[in-house]
């Protein structure tokens, strides 16, 4: 039986967890690291790096490295135009809701990928990590093919769908999309079976959520949720970076900007522990060049940069400075908190427990703000980085085992509606409705024998269509020809337990099921997802093959280099005369020439065959040369000893 996991696909870091006999655990790498940085980097040779190594490459090859892709999920190019300047990578994509859904595209090396495809690379890394863990545990079938993936509670339909698409592209069956704060509450609920009202305050790298829950009889019922999908630690980093970059002046290279980013993040972390710290930026002495040869290039070593770096800028920052700088960001979380309380019909004092989730809740100012608002000290017993993944694993376990001890009842964060006359949104399913939920609307024709109606579906709380999020446009077809106003087409909107919408329609007079042609405004069609899934497999294989080819070439180059060095050495003539067989040198030279000829081919096996041949041909020579150098060394030693 293959395994299931829970995945926290974060803006900054991602984690994978599973349920064991001892309860839910986060799966770590060999060094004990639970976090996989949500960073993907494409080397010039085509090799794809994900996680820590990709994160390091931000400092050496920033323009081929993508991070914080979660901010781009379910977005169009226009949506992200304003913040594009903060990122070193290319941001492209067709404008508007045109063919291809207007989905933003991100340049990763030489390819243009959608956010779900890039997220899929992170998910694949997590899948591999989990599979390695299960294999090491001795599982007969360690394959991981199903997962629960978490999203911010305030994610809209397009963002949820993009996350589910990412899972599918990574080769995972997405059992369920669940909300991060709710997942966290599930992980907390494991320890004690309490009853009461809980507020979960989740401030992560890129998103903020607040959820109010009532827990009773093991049912975790979300009463209300609110948030901001564009508010998090990233915004704090940008504030600090803008300061340092202004001090530095000039036009820094992308790698230098990333160096500043790394330094301010470190300072931010320090200030959660200390009253003051220094922001220290090291200037990279070596910067990767885009003009590096595409084939045969040595992997760029970050160590080289570290050795050659020197402090270029240092600035003292106190916690008070930091707090006055970030106060506006912290304040922006309080409005959604109050709205969520109002929607739940509660006063802050009625909340029994407050739970902190997300790395940014380590900041003392955030903790104070939350404590002030609710009038009680918030909980942070479970590692705020890990609690969401643990909850996702619990939910995955519930789904596959049918365990009924706990049940999560979540809500839809945004109202769903349709465009009506005058560009006004008419709400069909209100925000904070428990999901799954349904709503329906009756449509008719405006002119005689009209057989189709256009429907525009929206999500949001505002009056005007233009202020809300366009989810999709539907063409409702196949209406039987009738006089105007006679058809009665009932359109049923279904939000499933993932918070994702589907639509069906029926003409009530004829009881005919209507055809619906869905065109997501900012998403991928099923066909596109299928194609990307296939491509990702091809690329995964191609990436792997490319890596093997590069390794074969590197090894061949090493052997060629060593052989030529020996052939060119001063005492080679003496070696040949004294130690080699007649014709041995000629044979070596001919094999050497052969290997050099095949070196640039793309046929790995041929390169390896010739490499082996040269190794064999030079084995005797190598032994002779080795003996001579050992003797020389020993004799040298004797001379010194005398």
């Amino acid at each position, binding site marked *: 039986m293959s395994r299931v996991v829970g995945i926290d696909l974060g803006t900054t870091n991602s984690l994978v967890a599973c349920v064991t006999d001892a309860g839910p655990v986060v799966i770590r790498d060999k060094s004990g690291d639970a976090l996989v940085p949500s960073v993907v980097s494409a080397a010039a040779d085509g090799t794809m790096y994900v996680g820590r190594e990709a994160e390091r490459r931000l400092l050496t090859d920033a323009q081929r490295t993508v991070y914080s892709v979660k901010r781009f999920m379910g977005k169009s190019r226009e949506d992200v135009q304003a913040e594009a300047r903060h990122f070193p990578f290319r941001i492209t994509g067709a404008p508007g809701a045109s063919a291809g859904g207007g989905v933003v595209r991100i340049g990763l090396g030489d390819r243009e990928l959608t956010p779900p495809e890039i997220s899929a690379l992170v998910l694949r890394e997590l899948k591999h990590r989990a599979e390695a863990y299960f294999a090491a545990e001795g599982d007969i079938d360690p394959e991981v093919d199903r997962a629960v993936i978490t999203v911010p509670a305030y994610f809209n339909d397009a963002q949820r769908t993009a996350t589910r698409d990412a899972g599918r592209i990574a080769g995972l069956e997405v*059992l*369920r999309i669940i909300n991060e704060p709710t997942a966290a509450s599930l992980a907390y609920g494991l320890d004690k079976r309490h009853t009461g009202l809980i507020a979960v305050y989740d401030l992560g790298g890129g998103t903020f959520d607040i959820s109010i829950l009532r827990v*009773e*009889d093991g*049912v975790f*019922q979300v009463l209300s949720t609110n948030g901001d999908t564009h508010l998090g630690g990233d915004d704090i980093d940008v504030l600090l970076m803008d300061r340092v970059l202004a001090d530095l002046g000039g036009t820094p290279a992308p790698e230098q900007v990333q160096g500043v980013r790394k330094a301010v993040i470190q300072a931010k972390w320090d200030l959660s522990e200390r009253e003051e710290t220094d922001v220290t930026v090291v200037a990279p002495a070596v910067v990767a060049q885009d003009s590096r040869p595409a084939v045969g290039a040595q992997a760029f070593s970050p160590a080289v940069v570290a050795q050659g770096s020197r402090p270029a800028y240092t600035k003292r920052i106190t916690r008070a400075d930091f707090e006055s700088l970030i106060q506006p960001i912290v304040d922006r979380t309080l409005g959604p908190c109050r709205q969520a309380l109002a929607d739940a019909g509660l006063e802050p004092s009625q909340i029994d427990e407050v739970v902190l989730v997300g790395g940014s809740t380590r900041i003392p100012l955030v903790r104070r703000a939350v404590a002030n608002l609710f009038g009680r000290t918030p909980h942070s017993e479970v590692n705020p980085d890990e609690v969401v993944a643990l909850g996702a694993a619990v*939910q995955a376990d*519930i*789904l*596959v085992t*049918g365990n*009924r001890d706990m*049940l*999560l*009842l979540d809500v839809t964060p945004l109202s769903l509606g349709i465009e009506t006359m005058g560009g006004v949104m008419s709400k069909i399913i209100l925000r904070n*409705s*428990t*999901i*799954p*939920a*349904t*709503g329906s609307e009756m449509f008719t024709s405006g002119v005689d024998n009209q057989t189709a109606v256009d429907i525009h579906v929206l999500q949001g709380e505002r009056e005007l269509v233009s202020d809300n999020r366009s989810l999709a446009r539907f063409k409702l077809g196949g209406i039987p020809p009738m006089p105007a106003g006679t058809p009665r087409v009932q359109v049923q909107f*279904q939000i*499933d*337990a993932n918070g994702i919408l589907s639509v069906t329609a029926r003409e009530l007079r004829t009881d005919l099921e209507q055809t619906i042609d869905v065109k997501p405004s900012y998403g991928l069609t099923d066909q596109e997802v299928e194609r990307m899934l296939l491509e990702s497999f091809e690329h995964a294989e191609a990436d792997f093959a490319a890596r093997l080819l590069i390794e074969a070439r590197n090894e061949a180059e090493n052997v060629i280099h060593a052989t030529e060095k020996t052939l060119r050495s001063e005492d080679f003539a003496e070696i040949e005369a004294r130690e080699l067989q007649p014709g041995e040198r000629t044979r070596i030279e001919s094999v050497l020439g052969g290997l050099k000829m095949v070196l640039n081919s793309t046929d790995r096996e041929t390169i390896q065959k010739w490499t082996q041949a040269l190794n064999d041909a030079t084995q005797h020579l190598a032994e002779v040369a080795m003996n001579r150098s050992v003797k020389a060394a020993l004799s040298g030693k004797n001379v010194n000893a005398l």
Partner: protein
Amino acid sequence: MPSSSPHTLQVCRECGGGAPIDVHFCPQCTKILSLSRHGDYFEFFGLPRKLNLDLSDLEQRFRTLSRQFHPDFFYNATPAERLASLERSSYLNDGYRTLHQPISRMEYLLKIEGLGPKSPKEASRQVPPALLEEVFALNEELDEVRGMRAGGAAAEAWKARLQRARQPIDVKRIEHEAQLQELATRWDGLDAAAPDTERASALAALRDCFLERNYITNLLAGIERELETA
């Protein structure tokens, strides 16, 4: 009336057996029943058609039913059962939301008793006869206030005028809330054996009062908007 309706049975699509309308699982094969034929939200929750509900009892029923047919527990089931679970859970959630709020509960009861508004706009468009006098007076006041604003009057002056103008409507609102509560209690006190005429008159009074109350609420919301746009 549910008791006199011929549709008091539903059919299990799994085994073809019959089941009462107000159960969720087939008495024969124990499978979750599809939502093809169902009663109303009250029946679904096993509650009488009453307007005064014990909310903690409603919440308890909601949790119990959620545990019975939430999609989480049907992940490994057949596609038909999964669909039934999705439909039944959606209906449960929609019903819970409707019955939990007194106003939507009343609106729903009127609808299933055949006294719902003919169109969604009916309540807000038509001035209820009982309110004609107050509405006429208010509209005159509103015109005056708009005139003051156009003439550049101080915000305090026209706001005070507006606050005074809404007072009679506020009084009406309080009267209506009390009256609605009284009528709801009257409806709840009728037993199944009560004559149809008595039931009909209780419902009609309830409906008229309900529409007036909605009209007043809309009027007050309009005034609030006027104050906010200042």
